[in-house]
């Protein structure tokens, strides 16, 4: 019984220590954001990696997501002769919720894993130690550029997902539901408000920050060679995904002020 409590106590302490370390890394990274201009080259490299190189994947997934929402809602709406609602439903679902979350999930899987693997490999091959001996804080040189790049590029990717997702819905509405394309677009934008798009963009900026901090933290605390890097990468993706979905709920409630719609 004592052993069980000891184990529980050890797990709790370890968890709280890790949470504390993540917050400290976040705080340290924020203090270096003032040096963003001096590190603009590093930020640009990360913006290309996180943003530009992820656009094709986001586009493919967004177009199919838009199409599947249109198919699902379209056939239900046809029963009530309300196909005209498909456009607004696709538009609102994508811009408010699916665009940002989908982008966050894609970036966590594609970029977060790469970040954790790269930083983790640097840790286990003493490159992080070498960086420190060269009077450079890894939080400034490695984490801050990724943090800023992710916070900027995630909303841009979310906008791409919004546009492509709406186009996916349009394709289904026109080809399968017999909707008029012009009418579909008009109805969609009649229902969409700028606040819908903005709420999605704010959320995606947060998701970008989460992916960057969690992935870099896991990399910086990797130990034990290739196996350790592999575990750090898995932890980075799992924790980033979990935090994206949990924070999505709280951010949505916060942005909507607790009121639906």
């Amino acid at each position, binding site marked *: 019984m004592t052993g069980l409590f000891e184990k529980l106590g050890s797990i709790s302490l370890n968890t709280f220590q890790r949470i504390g370390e993540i917050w400290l890394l976040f705080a340290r990274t924020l203090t270096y954001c003032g040096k963003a201009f001096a590190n603009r080259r590093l930020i640009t490299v990360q913006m290309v990696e996180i943003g530009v190189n992820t656009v094709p994947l986001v586009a493919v997934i967004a177009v199919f997501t838009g199409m599947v929402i249109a198919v699902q809602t379209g056939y239900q709406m046809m029963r009530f002769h309300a196909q005209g609602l498909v456009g607004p439903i696709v538009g609102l679902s994508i811009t408010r919720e699916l665009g940002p979350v989908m982008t966050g999930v894609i970036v966590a899987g594609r970029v977060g894993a790469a970040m954790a693997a790269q930083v983790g490999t640097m840790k286990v091959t003493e490159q992080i130690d070498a960086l420190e001996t060269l*009077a450079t804080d890894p939080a400034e040189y490695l984490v801050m550029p990724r943090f800023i790049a992710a916070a900027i590029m995630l909303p841009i990717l979310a906008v791409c997902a919004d546009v492509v997702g709406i186009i996916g819905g349009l394709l289904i509405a026109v080809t399968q539901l017999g909707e008029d394309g012009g009418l579909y677009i008009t109805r969609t934008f009649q229902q969409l408000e700028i606040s819908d798009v903005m709420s999605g963009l704010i959320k995606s900026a947060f998701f970008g920050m989460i992916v960057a901090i969690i992935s870099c933290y896991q990399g910086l605390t990797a*130990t034990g060679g290739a196996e350790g890097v592999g575990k750090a990468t898995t932890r980075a993706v799992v924790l980033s995904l979990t935090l994206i979905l949990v924070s999505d709920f709280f951010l949505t409630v916060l942005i909507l002020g607790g009121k639906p719609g």
Partner: protein
Amino acid sequence: MIEIRGLHKSFDGNHVLRGIDLDVEQGETMVVIGRSGCGKSVLLKLIIGLMKPDRGSVVVAGKDVARMNRAELNELRKTFGMLFQSAALFDSLTVGENVGFGLRRFTDLSNTEIAHKVAEKLELVGLSGVESLRPAQLSGGMKKRAGLARALAMDPQIVLYDEPTTGIDPILSASINEMVRDLNDRLGVTSVVVTHDMASANIVGDRIAMLHEGVIRCVGTPEDIQTSDDPVCRQFVEGRADNDVEEPIVKSGGSGNV
């Protein structure tokens, strides 16, 4: 220059350093010898503040490294150069960018001046013309020499060498020994060299300290160490395998600190 007092360090219950006392004078080359895994590299990391001691102090230029904040530590580190056992070159940068890393970040030198200085340091270690190569394209010995060029790029006052001659051929090994000696004689650089290569220790060291079972077992000039009566010291110097004891296990990567 470097005063180490009562230094203790443990990893997961493995008490690696058990009260190190050692002084390194300004301009001196101190060689720390000892068996693999006895904590020599840990000692170097404690000197440059990459690890915090459990007890004891490392005072560099009058200041306790463990009590410095990050900004003070970074200022101090600008006066240090460190050669890692694995060279630890940044694999996302070219060799030239690796060597010029500190110069680009902390000096106002133009790109041309930096390129000139990088070429000069690479020439010093016998690696001219490899600026545009990636570390992955270099052999083990070349990586080590590029790491040495990076450590020397900022003209440091103190240089820490972690196994500088391990993994390179005898001729290059001799030239690195000469270089360490030359830096000490010509520029008065203070050096701490960690090695288990006794030939190298005898050439580069003004003094040699033997680390054994977590403490400094003996310290003296190379001649003192060669003629030491201490049985452990004699066994190491003569490279005898009799009365061998099990190798200690050091888990220096287990701290997991950010």
